[in-house]
């Protein structure tokens, strides 16, 4: 399916290890995927809590970790969230580590304290961190115990957002994967239903809901649900459409429940959204003319909305630093729909099964890199002199100070960017830094 040759090699730990990739003979068009190992400049999976806690309105995220974890979430949220957040950290202290305090008793006490403050919580996530993983604190047993204790008012689920196991958006994957067992079994003879997976902004969810209804997909559920009580049943007649490319573990867990994943690119831009909707339409055998009629107006709106940004971005060279795993999909969007040239597409982790359709659309000249050695990557980036660099918050201002134009990648994760009616906004996120540079005379 994919024309890309994957070059897997076992890597010794060598920071200055020059990136190498080999072409497999016999596949002329094939393009290598480089793997890189070195210092990474990425968030850990705990960061996902920032959007997940807003998505699930009766859920609370309790990180069991260190002061660093608490500081990370607070800092990554940029300015602090004004409303009372539905997340907190149980900060481990010396006595917890020295075995002077029973970790489970301590955790129970903290959860009691938390629930006294927030009795409205229906779903509690115990979120593992680097330190809790290293000391092997068994949060799954704690979750079981606490679930029993507070049943039926509260369900307690655990997952790990630790940086030794997860990068940024993988935290959402881990969270959703942990939520799958909470879904009831659908009857084997249940009517086929569509499950859209990935935390989407409510407004985007509503747009998709309307489109699927117009297409004639009778039952559509979203995962995660806005309220934990609304979690849908899953079974062999569930058809899964991923809204995000970083949900590999969740997809596997759903497959284990018999659900069938519909292969599709991701719903970015006019083309991406059309192809994504088409995957669902085909599964329901919706006649092509009806499909065309339904998507017509949204698709036209999206294309029109892209025009302005395309003027700015056509022919411009873009360089992606690894961040959210959205990079291959976004590179497909900016090259195919906005006429940009992708120099390098870095991604923290490449799930070939999920982004294969996107990789096929990329220019063979584009360098695709999985993993990171930030210093080497900065060297390549400076040498390539791209017109626009998509990178994390730690790199953006230093690169701007060197004279480059950057787009913070975190905004691509935090803003509504999916679907026809957000295509223009998504394009504008890439165009704005360039427009701004052109406009400023200071």
């Amino acid at each position, binding site marked *: 399916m994919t024309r890309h040759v994957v070059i897997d090699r076992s890597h010794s*730990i060598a*920071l*200055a290890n020059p990136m190498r990739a080999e072409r497999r003979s016999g596949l002329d068009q094939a393009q290598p995927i480089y793997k890189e190992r*070195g*210092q*990474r*400049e*990425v*968030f*850990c999976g*705990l*960061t996902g809590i920032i959007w997940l806690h807003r998505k699930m309105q009766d859920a609370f995220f309790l990180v*069991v970790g*260190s*002061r*660093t974890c*608490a*500081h*990370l979430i*607070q*800092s*990554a949220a*940029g*300015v*602090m969230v*004004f409303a009372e957040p539905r997340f*907190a*950290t*149980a*900060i481990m*202290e*010396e006595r*917890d*580590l020295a075995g002077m*305090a029973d*970790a489970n008793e*301590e955790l129970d*006490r*903290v959860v009691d*304290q*938390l629930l006294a403050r927030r009795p409205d919580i229906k779903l509690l996530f115990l979120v593992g961190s*680097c*330190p809790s*993983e*290293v*000391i092997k604190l068994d949060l799954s047993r704690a979750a079981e115990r606490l679930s029993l204790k507070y049943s039926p008012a509260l369900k307690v689920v655990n997952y790990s957002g*630790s*940086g*030794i*196991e997860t*990068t940024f958006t993988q935290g959402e994957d881990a969270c959703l994967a942990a939520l799958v067992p909470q879904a009831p079994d659908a009857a084997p003879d249940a009517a086929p239903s569509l499950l859209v997976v990935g935390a989407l902004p409510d407004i985007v969810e509503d747009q998709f809901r309307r489109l699927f209804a117009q297409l004639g997909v009778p039952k559509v559920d979203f995962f995660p649900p806005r309220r934990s009580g609304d979690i849908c049943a899953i079974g062999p007649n569930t058809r899964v459409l991923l809204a995000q490319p970083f949900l590999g573990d969740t997809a596997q867990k759903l497959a284990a429940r018999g659900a069938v994943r519909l292969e599709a690119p991701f719903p970015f831009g006019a083309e991406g959204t059309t192809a994504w909707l088409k995957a669902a339409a085909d599964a329901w055998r919706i006649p092509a003319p009806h499909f065309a009629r339904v998507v017509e107006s949204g698709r036209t709106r999206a294309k029109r909305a892209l025009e302005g940004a395309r003027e700015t971005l056509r022919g411009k060279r873009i360089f992606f630093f690894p961040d959210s795993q959205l990079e291959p999909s976004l590179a497909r969007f900016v090259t195919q729909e906005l006429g940009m040239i992708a120099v390098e597409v870095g991604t923290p982790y490449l799930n070939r099964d999920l982004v294969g359709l996107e990789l096929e659309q990329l220019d063979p000249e584009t360098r695709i890199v999985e993993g990171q050695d930030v*210093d080497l990557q900065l060297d390549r980036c400076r040498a390539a002199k791209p017109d626009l660099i998509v990178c*994390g*918050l*730690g*790199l953006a*201002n*230093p690169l*701007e*100070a060197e004279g480059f134009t950057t787009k913070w990648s975190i905004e691509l994760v935090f803003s509504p960017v999916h679907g026809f009616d957000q295509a223009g906004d998504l394009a504008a996120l890439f165009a704005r830094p360039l427009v701004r540079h052109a406009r400023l005379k200071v």
Partner: protein
Amino acid sequence: MQLTVWTYEGPPHVGAMRIATAMRGVHYVLHAPQGDTYADLLFTMIERRGERPPVTYTTFQARDLGGDTAELFKDSVRGAYERFQPQAMIVGASCTAELIQDDPAGLAKAIDLPIPVIPLDLPSYQKKESWGAAETFFQLVRTLAPRSEGRAPAEGRRPLCNILGPTALGFHHRDDLIEIRRLLETLGVDINVVAPLGATPADLRRLPDADFNVVLYPEIADTAARWLERTHGQPAIRTIPLGVGGTRDFIAEVVRIAGVDPRLALAEGASRMPWWSRSVDSNYLTGKRVFVFGEANRAIAAARVASEELGFEVVGLGAYNREFAREVRAAAEIYGVTPLITDDYLAVERAVAELQPELVLGTQMERHISKRLKIACAVISAPSHVQDYPARYSPQLGFEGANVLFDTWVHPLAMGLEEHLLTMFRDDFEFNDAAGPSHLGHSAAPAPESVPVEALSSAISWTQEAKAELAKIPFFVRGKATRNTEQFAVQRGIALIDLETLYDARSHLAR
């Protein structure tokens, strides 16, 4: 385990990063998993630095744990040295690496680099950011300035001092430094080294050349200053030049130690603040109830300014860094308040809700608390926020700093005559207390009727009539009036507050 919603301080390795980032020619190799790289954005985004912090993270992953993370650390040290060519290096572990016990100190020593490599032992599960910064600065100073060549004779030259404490991600350190440098120069004192901000390892070697040290931020520099005092006989000035009184005391200290002439520095008009505060327009500030919370040294100094220079009444004083708890307790005694020493944001919130002050002088956390409780607030202390790095010149210290304090502390309050008008004509449809102070525009927090017309204490109830009367009091004093009346009622064993009680309490408190 401690349940934490927001934290006042980061982990100690972030303190070490603040020192490394402030300095030039220093590189920090931190044994840490990838998520810890978030700390870079504190500097590049909050402080808008145009350079990456000089930090190499080993970013080990779970699959490395079974293998050789120690080798990874050594490779990182070698790689960082080759790439960045620093004059000195600091090495250490973050919270996770501390648990895997790879011994960064021993590993770094084994590499035998031709520069000083200073190992840091920052216990992540006991200590916090400020302590980490202080310890890192101390270790650098101790390693780089172990002995002195002996100072130049004092005759025939101006006194020479070091300014210690300004750091990266400091609360207004950039502008404080300009202000204090100017003040010292006016006093006829030369500056030997400013550290850590802008200093190189070579500069730290020159620290012993100075006659004395100015410790601007004790939470960062006190440990190092005490060592310099012991080792090199350099006295330290610890008076924080905050406010007019603080600045005058600071000048007096410099005069005492350096024997310089203070007249030029103290010249009339050095600060507008005294006149702004004495002007009749400021009469309405008298006795405003203020709650002060922040970094200990800053909170203590701010309480003095609030009390002596603005005529406020300090009703609460506290700090989040326990290292200076003793000093906070002593200061709280001056104002007859119970000191609040905690890093639990929720405890601070409870204290503010209970005290119902008219103004909160706090950190960004207290800004959120105040917003929720509809109380005016000004930020006086770290932790820093992007708003604490204004484009304009905005020192907190020195005489110009005192002017800034006047503006920023008074600004959030309803203005004098406006306060009266609001009381007299509170039903005006566009000029009423629910609209908030008029000079703050529409962005000001709306002050809806929800501000307690409710009883604060559950043991006491209010008659409808008394409640209605209470609602006629402007929102920014309603909380205080409610609290005072209820206290008055409790003292007299009154369970139901009626109009009589309300006005009795008022006359009682007006005595």
